[in-house]
């Protein structure tokens, strides 16, 4: 496979042709924050946290979707990018009701980790405090929309890995919600196989196993990539 050499944050990096900037950076130990990206699922470029500066492009480009090219010069952590990323994380915290103190995922939450990673100390924006429902109609799992960041990782895990597409998105703007089976309560969504891949994929405490208490949620989203990779090897 052809190799490409590029510069990321002043560091010379080699990458496989067809790889994305994100993959090349991670291989080289350069951390680019992400939220909607999950290895094993298709990339959608929705959270905008992984936007990077590429010399020669007037626009910021999503690292998760932009393929590397020879001689490319990438900056992942300019002052502007850091400030914009911090603003995005703050916007997410302001959007719904993220109360770590009562959340099952506290200590094992990608949103929480992101806040630390981007150096967020407080939220400058007005909290929108929407009224969000909690659905615990499913016998094993529940979804608390207060904690959902609309990354759609559950939607893609269900569709692309489990092959079911129980999850999707309804509504638009801040009123968008992930839904099961055309908006039925999860427990009545007959397409759901209760496989739990959505739980694995969820970056926050939005999707949880029932009966889990504060900070007790244990799950490793990397297992999605393991499932995908092991299937490829076998078939």
């Amino acid at each position: 496979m052809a190799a490409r050499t590029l510069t990321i944050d002043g560091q010379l990096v080699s990458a496989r042709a067809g790889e994305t900037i994100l993959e090349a950076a991670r291989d080289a130990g350069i951390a680019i924050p992400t939220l909607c990206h999950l290895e094993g699922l298709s990339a959608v470029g929705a959270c905008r946290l992984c936007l990077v500066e590429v010399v020669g492009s007037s626009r910021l480009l999503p690292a998760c979707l932009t393929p590397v090219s020879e001689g490319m010069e990438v900056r992942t952590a300019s002052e502007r990018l850091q400030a914009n990323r911090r603003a995005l994380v703050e916007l997410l915290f302001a959007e719904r009701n993220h109360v770590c103190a009562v959340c099952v995922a506290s200590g094992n939450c990608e949103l929480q980790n992101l806040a630390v990673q981007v150096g967020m100390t407080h939220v400058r924006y007005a909290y929108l405090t929407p009224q969000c429902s909690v659905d615990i109609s499913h016998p094993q799992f529940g979804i608390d929309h207060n904690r959902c960041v609309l990354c759609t990782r559950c939607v893609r895990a269900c569709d692309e890995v489990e092959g079911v597409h129980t999850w999707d998105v309804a509504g638009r703007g801040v009123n968008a919600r992930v839904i099961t089976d055309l908006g039925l309560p999860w427990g009545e969504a007959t397409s759901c196989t209760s496989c739990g891949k959505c739980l694995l994929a969820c970056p926050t405490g939005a999707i949880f196993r029932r009966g889990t208490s504060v900070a007790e949620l244990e799950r490793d989203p990397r297992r999605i990539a393991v499932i995908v990779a092991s299937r490829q090897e076998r078939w």
Partner: protein
Amino acid sequence: MDLAELNAIAAHERASRKPIRIACCTSLGCYASGAVELQQQLTAGVAATGRAENVEVVGVGCMGFCGHGPLVRIEPEDLLFEHVRPEQAPAIIAALDGGPCDVERGDPRHPFFARQLPIVRRNGGVIDPERIEAYIAAGGYATLYRVLHDVSPAEVIDQITRSGLRGRGGAGYPTGLKWATVAKSPGERKFVVCNGDEGDPGAFMDRSILESDPHLVLEGMAIAAYAVGAHEGYLYVRGEYPLAIQRLTRAISQARRHGLSGSQIFETAFDFKVEVRVGAGAFVCGEETALIASIEGRRGQPRPRPPYPAERGLWGCPTLINNVETFANIVPIIERGADWYASIGTARSKGTKVFALTGKIRNTGLIEVPMGITLREIIEDLGGGTPDGTPVKAVQTGGPSGGCIPASLFDTPVDYESLAAAGSIMGSGGMVVMDAGTNMVEIARFYMAFCMDESCGKCVPCRVGTVQMHHLLDKLVNGQATSEDLVQLEALCQIVREMSLCGLGQSAPNPVLSTLRYFRDEYAALLNAPSAAAPQPTD
């Protein structure tokens, strides 16, 4: 269908015309104010007075003077009547004999008409949009015939490139370049898509074109399909345009019946099948990748580009997407040549542009003017200024992606680059005129509310950023904002513009940025100003 048959239809149509023609506008604006009943009354009146021999009543497309509708024009005398009510039909028929007539008269030589240069709207208000024969009699489909028989696809693309035509949807991408890219993209199956999801507040250019001359768009699409090697096409029209959808659907079935759409058009090997797809009310579906998703039956939300649709579009195939007005320009360009088209307009913006003049303006309606005309000429000469004669304060162009241009810059020529330099965009053609009574911060808040409501919710900066910006604008309008709020608003403008996924989010801050640029004093005046509505301290 061959050329002889086409000519025969045209000849028969022309021969069956009657000496006197009463043309009644049946486009949506006039339609809504009673034009259909008016047309019936006119038809009945002509029959009752025994004039059916030499007088015909024809429903025609948009005449453009929408604010004065319903409109009726009598030819060949070229009499124009405005605000006609159905009960005035007898008076209009009486006017045929030069009798006294108390119906409001319009002036067909008014600058509103005289200063226009109709190219895409040349059949608007002239032909009956519901009859393909009327279009053929006006020269329709002869260009497609000539293209299919005598012009190679490469020559068509060359003509469009040399004409200098740029996308009329707003961004102004060179049309010829787009066509060439799709033509060169490898793939057995390609698509041509017409974007009729016009959604800017105050804009109705595409609706009027589709309602007034649907075959012009269909013929343009067929030529495009021939040029890029596509055999299937979709017309994506917003669901709020029922009359346009009805006329398009009718036009497609007429074209199919006449062998002008479908298989072996004009008995050549060229097939082009076209279908209408109706939008379900999302502004973001005007964004090309969201539009593609919507046609495919998926949730209408954009995806990052590249890959561009020219490379990977509808169902993964190379897809040409142009706006309604862009397609409507194709037939005139091929018919009269690239050099003719390139002779109109400015160095980098060729041809004409259709604008919808609305807001605080005397002559509300639709105009088609050459590029390079100044905003002042449009607003003062064609538009007639404000209805009460007070000075115009600003004009908003480009809808929620555009900006407000102050009266001091009204000598700006209308072309893609000049409008962008003034902090706005050409956009699809909406022009909302504002007078001194307009609060520019409220205008910014209105457009932000629009973007907030229309954000699909996929990407974070647009989904949440627009809500936060709207919140800050709300605080400003209510006199509750501090100077820190203004700083935060400007910072958010930058973030949302730089970080958003698609054009909707990237351009959502524009109405705020442009009003801040020209009317910052209005923002400053609202800082901590007690609002009239807010309760006042009593001690």
